Each structure stands twice: as structure tokens, then as C-alpha cells.
């Protein structure tokens, strides 16, 4: 992330200078910073609401029930999660909220899932395999109905906006499945760096 952060900023400044848009780039620092706080603050209310609801769902055993229901699937995809962790339930809730286009609910629930995953993470600064898998599933953005896009199409007088639903569903499924496969592959070959560097991280045990 260090290099990406460096590259994004330095490339922007150099490209801005070359394009004669350095002033715009400088202005973007302020507008970007303002926007970040706006985004974070706009999350507070909805975050509080869903974290509250999720706490009830957990106390009444709903999350554990869902976790047990999808055990066969999560057991394979998220090997690190212990049997009794509610993380699997949170993950399932978050992904289904996403699938139904409830991104307002999906983000707080997803963050709660991340907190559960963090409990089982050995190195608190570094992403665990389970976290990477969850994020891969999330960034692929599996959605059953692209409601916002259809709304834009309708506003422009698009004749048959619903015709994009099937191709979008197909594309998002392909991206979703390939994200899971790639995360599984990387998990094998991209081991976390040991907290204390030791020579034994070159083990070739494999399968």
C-alpha cells in the first residue's frame, strides 16, 4: 500500500504539471479531504442503526443460526474461522444485503464481519486470508439488480432499460466467481510475512 499511495500522489502531481493542471491537482487535495469526512459522517447514522440491529440479531441467535446454515460453504472459503465464530453469519448477511442492492446495510454489517475476522487474525496490522477472501467477494460487487444504473437509463429515455439486467447479472457472476478463485490461488502462494522474520518461511510443504 505504501508504494501505491506514493505512486498515486506523485504520478498525479507530475501528470498535472505536464498537462498544465497543477492548480486543479492542488485543489483536489482540499476537495478530496472534505469529501472523505463527508463520506465518513454520512455513514455515522446508518452505521449506528445497523450495528444496533445486528447486535440484536446476534443476541437472539439469528447470526449463529445463519452461520451454521452456510457452514459447508464458509468452512471451505474461510478456513481460519473457528466453528463457533459469528463471523460467517455476518459475512452471509453482508453479502446478501449487497446482492439485494442494500449497500447502506451491507457496509456496516460487512465492517462488523471484519471485526469478527480481526479477532482471529494473528497479525493485527496485516490482512488475513479470510479477510482477503471476504474483500474479494465484496469488491466483485455481486448484485442481483443494478437499480441506480437502471434509474439513470430511464431518465435518458432508454427504451428498454431492463434488457441490461441479464447481461449485468452474468458479468457480475463471472467477476464474483473469478475473484473467489483468484483469492484461493493467491492464498496459497502469497503467505503473510512472519511477524518476526525467520528463515523458515521458505517452507515448500504445499499439499
Amino acid at each position, binding site marked *: *500500500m505504501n508504494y501505491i499511495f506514493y505512486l498515486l500522489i506523485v504520478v498525479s502531481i507530475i501528470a498535472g504539471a505536464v498537462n498544465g493542471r497543477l492548480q486543479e491537482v492542488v485543489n483536489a487535495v482540499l476537495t478530496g479531504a472534505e469529501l*472523505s469526512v463527508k463520506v465518513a459522517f454520512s455513514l455515522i447514522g446508518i452505521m*449506528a442503526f445497523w450495528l444496533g440491529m445486528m447486535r440484536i440479531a446476534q443476541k437472539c441467535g439469528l447470526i449463529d443460526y445463519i452461520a451454521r446454515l452456510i457452514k459447508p460453504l464458509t468452512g471451505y472459503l474461510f478456513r481460519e474461522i473457528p466453528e463457533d465464530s459469528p463471523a460467517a453469519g455476518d459475512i452471509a448477511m453482508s453479502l446478501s444485503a449487497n446482492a439485494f442492492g442494500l449497500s447502506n*446495510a451491507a457496509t456496516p454489517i460487512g465492517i462488523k464481519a471484519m471485526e469478527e475476522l480481526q479477532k482471529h487474525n494473528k497479525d493485527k496490522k496485516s490482512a488475513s486470508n479470510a479477510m482477503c477472501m471476504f474483500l*474479494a467477494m465484496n469488491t466483485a460487487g455481486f448484485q442481483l*439488480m443494478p*437499480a441506480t444504473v437502471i434509474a439513470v437509463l430511464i431518465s435518458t429515455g432508454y427504451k428498454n432499460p431492463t434488457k441490461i439486467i441479464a447481461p*449485468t447479472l452474468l458479468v457480475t457472476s*463471472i467477476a464474483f466467481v473469478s475473484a473467489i478463485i483468484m483469492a484461493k490461488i493467491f492464498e496459497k502462494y502469497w503467505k503473510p510475512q512472519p511477524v518476526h522474520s525467520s528463515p523458515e518461511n521458505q517452507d515448500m510443504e504445499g499439499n
Partner: protein
Amino acid sequence: MFQHFMNIASLWMLPAILILILTLGLIKRVPIYEVFTEGAKEGFKVSVNIIPYLVAIIVSISMLRASGIIELTGEVLSPLLAHFNIPADILPVMIVRSLSGSAALGIFSDIAHNLGPDNYATTLAAVMVGSSETTFYVLAVYFGAVGISKLRYALLVGLLADLVGIIAAVTVCNLMF
């Protein structure tokens, strides 16, 4: 038919979840009001925790967009795109959709309004925007909330999945429209 069903499902999903959680809570004798407020307290903390991570990502991506390099990349890549039957107007969407959701939606609206409805580019852009989530934003928020700074392969997988999505969108749209 499918859309009608999906509309109803989308509308009822949230109310159904709320009724389910609250009813189950009462049946199991959970003090739902207390437990709710106790959980909701976390909301502020989590939102404030992600600010540093959001600032890092959103500021650097705002700078990148302001620098004009995205348009420049578009010009460089346009001969390649023509080869795959991809309209040049789509390029900004392809690049921006991993970086910023609101920007991708904005560019898509521009395309839809400028090129008019029922244009191939509009359809392709719609499928691309509708089928993706903003990788950088998701990573910043989710990892930021738990204080992870070493992402390992998470970003790479996210971007590769976006690339797969772009290729799939082009292929599917070429075959269908």
C-alpha cells in the same frame, strides 16, 4: 417478470429483515431497545476510525482524476480498444470504476445523456457500472475499520476481478447487442 419479482424483493428485503430481527429478539426475551442502543454506540466510533483511511484514498484518487492522466491513458489506449470493438467513450468508465463509484456513475450519466438512449456505448457502460463495486473504496472502508494497513493480495485480486468484469462485459455485450 424477473424484474417485477426483483423490484418486490428489493423493496421487501429490508422491512423483512427488520421484522425478523425484532420479532426473534422479543421471542428470545432479548431487551431489544437496550441491546440496540448498545450496538449503535459503535457506529460513531467506526465511522471516525475510517476517516484517516478514507482521506488517504479519496484525496489521492481526487488528485489523480484532476491531473488529467485518465484522459491521457484513454488516448493512448484507444487504438487497442478499436481493435476489440469497444467505443472510445467507454474508456473513462473502465478506468474510473475501480477508483470512484460516484465518478463512474457520473461519467456513465454523461455518456447516456450525450450519446442518447439505445446506443451500444450506453448499454456497455451500463453493464460495466452495474456489475462492479468500487475496489479502492471498499478496501479503504473495510480495512480501515479494523486498522489493517498491510493489504497483501487483496487489492490485486480486487483489480484483477475488475479486469475480468470488463472483459466479460465487452464479450457479453458483443454477443447480445
